[in-house]
């Protein structure tokens, strides 16, 4: 379980998160939604232990989130930190050398699903294929928590579709919890169990999406338009 207790995060004088408390269910696909600059990426970085809270506490499966939390958390960054001179295969071998839970067999399976080739040089990959490679690396780890920061942003519709399909195919929902931040709400909406809505550094709700549809006759996008435009 992921739990935030009165967490604030300040970058200089700017508040990214303000006194946020919530806990997240396990075995779900969870979407973190909100406008640009609302604190979505900061939330993921805090869970991944890549940023430290200014105050408050974050725990992941009972363990305080620090840099060492990476043994239970797989994190996909919005930017890509690949060495251009690596091949796809080198990158996979590198991941395997860094994470004991990395499964080369699963990586190969996802690679072929994504139609990537181990011998391709990373500098020659299209943006779409770099996006796909990030998915391979993130999902090939056998960890309880997977964090994905904007996995679809800037990619064409076919790549987005293959990434979403890859997610459904390769996550083990009985053992894994997935958190995704995204602006591509319409595309991600059918695969989300839960949404976390963030606005101006505050979590305004953690909501089961099917319940939202049942109670309000509204999807995430309708709901956002209503809530976020009220000001």
């Amino acid at each position, binding site marked *: 379980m992921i739990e935030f207790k009165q967490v604030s995060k300040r970058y200089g004088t700017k508040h990214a998160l303000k006194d946020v408390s919530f806990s997240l269910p396990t075995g779900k696909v969870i979407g973190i939604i909100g406008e640009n600059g609302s604190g979505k990426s900061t939330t993921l970085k805090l869970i991944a232990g890549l940023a430290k809270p200014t105050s408050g506490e974050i725990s992941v499966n009972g363990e305080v989130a620090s840099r060492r939390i990476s043994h239970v958390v797989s994190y996909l960054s919005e930017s890509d930190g690949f060495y251009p001179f690596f091949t796809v295969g080198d990158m996979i071998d590198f991941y395997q050398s860094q994470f004991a839970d990395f499964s080369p067999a699963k990586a190969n399976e996802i690679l072929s699903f994504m139609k990537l080739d181990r011998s391709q040089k990373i500098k020659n990959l299209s943006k779409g294929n770099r996006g796909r490679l990030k998915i391979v690396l993130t999902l090939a780890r056998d960890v309880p928590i997977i964090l994905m920061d904007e996995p679809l942003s800037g990619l064409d519709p076919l790549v987005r579709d293959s990434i979403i*399909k890859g997610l*459904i195919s390769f996550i083990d929902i009985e053992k894994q919890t997935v958190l995704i931040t995204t602006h591509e709400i319409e595309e991600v909406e*059918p*695969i989300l*169990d839960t949404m976390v809505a963030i606005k101006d550094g505050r979590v305004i709700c953690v909501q089961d999406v*099917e319940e939202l*549809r049942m109670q309000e*006759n509204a999807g995430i*996008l309708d709901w956002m338009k209503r809530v976020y435009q009220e000001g």
Partner: protein
Amino acid sequence: MGEEFNPSKPIYLQLIERISHQIVRKELSAGEKLPSVREMAIQSGVNPNTVQRTYSELERMGIVETRRGQGTFVTEDESILSSLRENLKEQQIIQFINDMREMGYTDQEMVRGLQEYLRKEGGAKA
């Protein structure tokens, strides 16, 4: 990824509807195995949890049964299948009648309209 879902209606209900229609159209026959939860999730582009909920609900309704270690199957109970067929018919009729009434048509106009349409269509087919 198949047809899109309406994002403002619970997806598991839409999936129940789709599967029920497939059964009534005999695309899925009595006793036939449904795709596994993961296969169905991939086919329809939804979360496996949603498919699991769909299957549990269909099971509660008696439309499918889960056999341990084998998967989920369409029921072979004819009475359930024929009542499913009746239910879907009734739903369509209710929908039609409500829409027509809302536009101000009388019951007689509806019946006459249907009869006329079927006659013409029958004539065109023959």
